[in-house]
């Protein structure tokens, strides 16, 4: 009997349960992805060296997500219960016991959970593939098919059961405590009217100014560690900013509606007075909650995009610093005998896409550095024009030749020094190369570091080949370089390292030399670009994982609370909508008022976070500049947009569902008499 009631109720109460259902289903799909990460062998494939970190972090997130979801659903089921106070109160008066009601409610929840579990798993299957694809793309790996694991599935089911039990406890406590009178009352008491609107308005203005100041402070300071009290401004500014957001909400919600209502021209039109009064009560009651949500969402957008910018900048920087799969340098081999076999050796470790050997010569006096910077921290060196053209072409640049002068190449030089090289006026400046004197022809726009190691870390003079040839004869200080690009970046890293290690120990290559004041003991020095990226990803991947997941979960659960709260209060407000209808509003007007309320209610906590994405964008731009400026403005905007967009998608989903439920609810109310 009770089961029958419960089953029919789920069908009838589909509205309230729909939000529940969506939340549980989305949570299940996330849990399934996380748990698959823990057990699947796919992680071994895509993240071999940091698979343990990813597994541990996934497990941690999985547990965190379960607890957070259980808490929110527990809290949410209070609204679900409140929505049906009258019905339950009625059950009590017709002689059912509290336990009976509990059984009904629990049965309803179990039905919902079973459906959600099914839907969530169905959703989790593609979501997992999508995330694996995203990770492989981010790590620039080959696409792999995510492998599902039975253990992951079982763990997911267990966790959902735990979530169900945890959230049920909360509802049980509520049902045990609530009194019959309380249940039967049903009707919502009208909220108190707003007091001291002027004070609240002032509060809002003051904190808005404070927010702007603190954000400006943070934006101006971010990335510039040379400013006094850098850390203090950064941390203090952020804290003041977050506090301000809360206070702005409280101030705005306690005064804004009041001023709108006072403006008769605006409010005395159609259903506006009604809409504003409805909002006034709810907003001022929920203003602190809105403030906190706004702060959380701002943190999600700020934290997510700052973190992504940092990682991406670092990665882009690493890639720009190591544009070739392998970069080698070794002592100057003037006869070319010692390095003649290099192409053959290199090709045994993988399919070589392109490869180039070249030489860099030391240029005493460091006049180029001095001219650009006023001082020198590194030494000038010279490169042949043909080498420069070839190396640039290997990484996809089509650069101009030097003509009658020389090219300034900023080899691995970023930030201010890059800007300086580009803004310097080179008129009248010439560089002496042997018996020739060359003016500057242009400053290269190649950001990548073409030559890695040895004397290469500096401004490089790129001169016509014949000039370098004559200069080279008299200059002994030089290094031989070799840049290799393997197809798809794939080659046998381990064998290569071992091979050249052995070579370095052969008497033929046993060497010890000094260049530019640095002592080298290996003949072959090898930089493998993948190793840097790998190292970086190893550090960042777990954190990136955490940041993204926590952001999504924050947003998801916030929406669930807003949705459940709204659906409940609409039910409790039914009578008011009905009265509005009797006062002569058309059904369309009533539903319009309802929709406006819901949209505002949902959207308001996101206004400030979305607006905040503008200063956040500037902070990220500043950070990226500080990190070498390897990211374009578009890429940074993309990072910020990614997190804002994620919020908007979830916002849209929950808002649409809530509106649909509430509208159906009220439409039904209007069409029934009494």
């Amino acid at each position: 009997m009770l089961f029958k009631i419960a089953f029919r109720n789920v069908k009838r109460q589909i509205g309230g349960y729909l939000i529940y259902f969506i939340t549980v289903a989305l949570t299940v799909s996330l849990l399934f992805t996380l748990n698959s990460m823990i057990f699947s062998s796919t992680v071994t494939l895509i993240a071999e060296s940091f698979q343990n970190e990813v597994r541990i972090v996934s497990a941690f997130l999985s547990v965190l997500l379960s607890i957070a979801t259980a808490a929110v659903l527990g809290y949410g089921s209070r609204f679900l219960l409140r929505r049906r106070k009258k019905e339950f109160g009625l059950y009590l008066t017709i002689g059912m016991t509290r336990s009976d009601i509990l059984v009904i409610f629990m049965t309803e929840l179990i039905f919902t959970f079973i459906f959600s579990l099914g839907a969530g798993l169905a959703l989790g299957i593609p979501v997992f593939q999508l995330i694996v694809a995203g990770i492989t793309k981010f790590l620039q790996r080959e696409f792999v098919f995510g492998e599902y694991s039975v253990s992951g599935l079982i763990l997911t089911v267990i966790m959902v059961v735990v979530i169900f039990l945890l959230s049920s406890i909360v509802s049980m406590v509520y049902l045990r405590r609530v009194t019959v009178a309380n249940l039967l009352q049903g009707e919502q008491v009208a909220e108190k009217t707003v007091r001291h609107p002027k004070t609240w308005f002032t509060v809002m203005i003051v904190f808005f100014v404070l927010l702007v100041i603190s954000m400006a402070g943070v934006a101006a300071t971010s990335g510039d560690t040379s400013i006094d009290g850098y850390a203090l401004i950064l941390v203090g500014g952020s804290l003041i900013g977050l506090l301000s957001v809360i206070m702005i909400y409280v101030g705005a919600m306690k005064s804004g509606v009041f001023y709108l209502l006072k403006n008769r021209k605006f409010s005395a039109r159609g259903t506006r007075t009604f809409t504003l009064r409805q909002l006034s009560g709810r907003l001022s009651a929920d203003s602190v909650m809105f403030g906190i949500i706004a702060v959380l969402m701002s943190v999600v957008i700020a934290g997510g995009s700052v973190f992504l910018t940092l990682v991406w900048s670092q990665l882009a920087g690493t890639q720009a610093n190591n544009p070739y799969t392998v970069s080698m340098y070794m002592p100057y081999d003037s006869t070319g005998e010692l390095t003649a076999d290099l192409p053959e050796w290199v090709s045994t470790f993988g399919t070589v896409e392109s490869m180039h050997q070249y030489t860099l010569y030391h240029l005493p006096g460091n006049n180029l550095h001095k001219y650009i910077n006023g001082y020198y921290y590194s030494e000038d060196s010279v490169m042949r024009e043909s080498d420069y053209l070839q190396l640039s072409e290997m990484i996809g640049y089509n650069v101009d030749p030097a003509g009658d002068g020389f090219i300034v190449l900023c080899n691995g030089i970023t930030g201010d020094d890059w800007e300086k090289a580009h803004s310097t006026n080179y008129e009248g400046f010439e560089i002496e190369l042997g018996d020739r004197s060359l003016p500057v022809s242009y400053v290269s726009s190649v950001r990548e570091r073409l030559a890695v190691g040895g004397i290469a870390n500096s401004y490089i003079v790129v001169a016509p080949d014949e000039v370098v040839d004559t200069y080279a004869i008299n200059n002994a200080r030089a290094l031989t370089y070799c840049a290799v690009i393997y197809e798809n970046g794939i080659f046998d890293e381990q064998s290569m390292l071992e091979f050249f290690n052995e070579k370095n120990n052969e008497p033929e290559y046993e060497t010890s030399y000094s260049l530019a004041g640095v002592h080298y003991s290996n003949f072959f020095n090898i930089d493998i670009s993948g190793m840097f990226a790998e190292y970086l990803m190893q550090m960042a991947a777990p954190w990136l994982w955490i940041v993204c997941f926590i952001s999504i979960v924050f947003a998801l659960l916030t929406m669930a609370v807003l949705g459940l709260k709204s659906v409940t209060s609409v039910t409790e407000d039914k009578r008011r909508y009905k009265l509005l209808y009797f006062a002569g509003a058309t059904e369309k007007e009533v539903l319009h008022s309802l929709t406006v309320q819901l949209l505002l209610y949902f959207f308001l906590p996101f206004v400030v976070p979305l607006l905040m994405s503008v200063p956040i964008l500037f902070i990220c731009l500043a950070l990226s500049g500080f990190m070498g400026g390897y990211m374009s403005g578009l890429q940074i905007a993309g990072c910020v947009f990614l997190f804002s967009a994620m919020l908007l998608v979830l916002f849209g989903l929950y808002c649409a569902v809530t509106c649909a439920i509430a509208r159906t609810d009220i439409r039904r109310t209007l069409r029934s008499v009494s």
Partner: protein
Amino acid sequence: MSEILQVTDAVKYYGNESVAVRALAGVSFSMQRGEFVAVMGPSGSGKSTLLSVISTIEPLSGGRIVIAGDAITELKDKQLSAFRRDRIGFIFQEYNLLDTLTVEENIALPLNLRKTDPTHIACEVRRVSEALGVTDQLDKFPRELSGGQRQRVACARAVITSPALILADEPTGALDSRNSRMLMELFCMMNEKLGVSILMVTHNAAVASYADRVIFLSDGKIFDEIYRGERDRKDFRHEIVTVTEALGGEEG
């Protein structure tokens, strides 16, 4: 006198194909402009349903209703809402007022919905609140008023659009006898001074005796109909009680 309301053979079924409840089984009557009519009858006899179909909230299953020359049974959905807004005023037993709105906002609501000019709204609110004696309460919220005051405000809101017809479903249901009396005097005043036509459902013979005519419903049909004529209220009330008893013993 012209006819303000004409109900011909009104039939109303509730429910679906399997279980249908016949709430009105062919009701016919008409009301003159400026008339004050009360409807009485046992519980479940179809009184509220009659008001619902007249007020266009419930569609009629059969028959025809004409209000102030408009055959509402032939109006489209959109016209119906406009009709409800412009031609009809409602007063119920309880919950007449929106608790979130001030008294002033409650009274002004129908005009807001008509998108009347705000300065004109202010004038009208002053006019009706003076007529109904609620000027001092304008800035209060409904919960700060007594039951009687609330019904006055509800009346003010019902008359502000100068409707052709006011429909009242047990307006005194939640009031004590003194407040009921005061409300009925107010109805009479609105009826006489403002020329409003009123159709009111009540269970109370004393309340009904303020009307010009009482219609008795039973099982969805008109059972009887009595006019007050030139009699005083006491006599009229007596007759109402007699008919009520004949109908099946409801107290007067």
